[in-house]
């Protein structure tokens, strides 16, 4: 029988690049668990970027701040058990303009109607709907991959996270 190998914060084995005729930096090769191990709780570290679009890794630990974006975002839980709370914002335009990219922090509690909660485990993917506020909570450290657009709090630290020499 075959065993499916997934990875976690304390158990991952990074692959690598065997360069024949290229610069390893062109592959921007990182490992999300290594990134999350080196991150502060809920820092949003860009691990993949294609022009304005990004994939960002969050180290989920405890309760996050509330955030909102004017476009849909998606959260793929890659470790831990994460509770996601969603609130329909009364006035999303007080947090962002319709054309803005990426998510913005909300100070304190969001004002709006509770939409519901999602309890997601490794491999589960959740919609973070446009103009809603969302908050993550975990009891044990976990990892969340966010599909989004680069925003004011997206952190790029490529040289720290990527393979630069082989």
């Amino acid at each position, binding site marked *: 029988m*075959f*065993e*499916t*190998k*997934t*990875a976690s914060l304390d158990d*991952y*084995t990074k*692959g*690598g*690049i*065997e*360069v*024949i*005729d*290229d610069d*390893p930096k*062109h*592959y*921007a*090769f*990182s*490992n*999300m668990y*290594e990134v999350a191990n080196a991150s502060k709780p809920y820092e949003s570290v860009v691990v*993949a*970027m*294609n*022009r304005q*679009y990004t*994939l960002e890794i969050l180290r989920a630990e405890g309760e996050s701040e509330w955030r909102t974006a004017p*476009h*849909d975002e*998606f959260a*793929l839980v*890659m470790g831990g058990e994460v509770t996601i709370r*969603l609130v*329909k914002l009364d006035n999303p335009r007080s947090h962002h303009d319709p054309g803005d990219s990426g998510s913005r922090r909300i100070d304190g509690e969001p004002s709006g*109607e*509770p*939409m*519901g*909660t*999602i*309890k*997601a*485990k490794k*491999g*589960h*993917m*959740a*919609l973070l*709907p446009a103009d*809603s506020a969302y908050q993550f909570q975990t009891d044990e450290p976990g990892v969340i*991959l966010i*599909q*989004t*657009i680069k925003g004011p709090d997206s952190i*790029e630290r*490529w040289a720290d996270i990527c393979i630069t020499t082989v």
Partner: protein
Amino acid sequence: MTTLEETPTVLATEQNEQGYREFSLGELHFRRDEYFVYITWPTGSHVMSADAFLRALQRDVAWEFFYGIVNFDGVIGTVNHYGTVDLFAGRYNDSYRKAELDHVENFPTPQIKATFEEMLDDWTNETFDPFAAPRETGSAFGVKNGENRKAITRHRVKAARMVSCTGDEQIRSDETGHPVNEHFVDISQDEPEIIAEPGFEDEVKAFSLFAYLSRSDVTWNPSVVSVCKDSLFCPTTEEYILPIIHGNDRVEWFVQLSDEIHWDVADRETGALRAKVVMRAGDVAAMPANIRHQGYARKRSMLLVWENADPDIPELIATGQTPTYPADF
């Protein structure tokens, strides 16, 4: 104004001695027999194994010529110009180029699509599933033996917002005809717990991507599960060898969700080897826009392919306004 699209004419012969029809696209001619596919053009000829050819043809048809170049092997392939398609022989092969024996012809997408679809339909025997891993399918070989239309015209998953959303692509189950694959019997089939307040049932949405992928009945077939404007999550399950060599016209990203894939990376234009990349669970890597790549997976693995579908990118890259690699550091 016409309301019906004109049906393109497919140039094909009657059945040959082995029972297969022969097809022409411009000056390129395609013929198959028990084991092989023979391609000829005014300055050359090429032979491919019928199973490898059909696996590649299946991807090219299903993906509507995908992003950039779909190399069937080191000689034959297509370039997507999103409305028209180049069919080439030797165009991305250094030796053919230097000898000036390469050949390229451009076709309106409906014409090459209709021809490829008929070729795939005629040349796929009832024993063969071009989307399956070798352990899951019978033989592609022999004289003409029935058809496998069910396998070659599978529903193409293309979520508009996210799989499981109202009115969108739905999750897979035994009932939808998607049993858990033998290689993924250890993947939890639990779905996330969702509590939606009244009125918000359509927006409080989540699903198990891992369970969804564990029930994929195809290999090497990226299909859209979530959409953030032009940012598309296109996960796929990979086993054996990617049947095409993909030449990028934009940066493409891979997030290895489970298991391990080995990638050969070569120059997009010449095919000269540039790097070998090994990706394991949790690894994230870019495929630059000036390369071609082909993957190898021993065990069926879950790969998240991430695409930026912005139609302006090929031009921005071709004119140097956007770099061929993802980030400067």
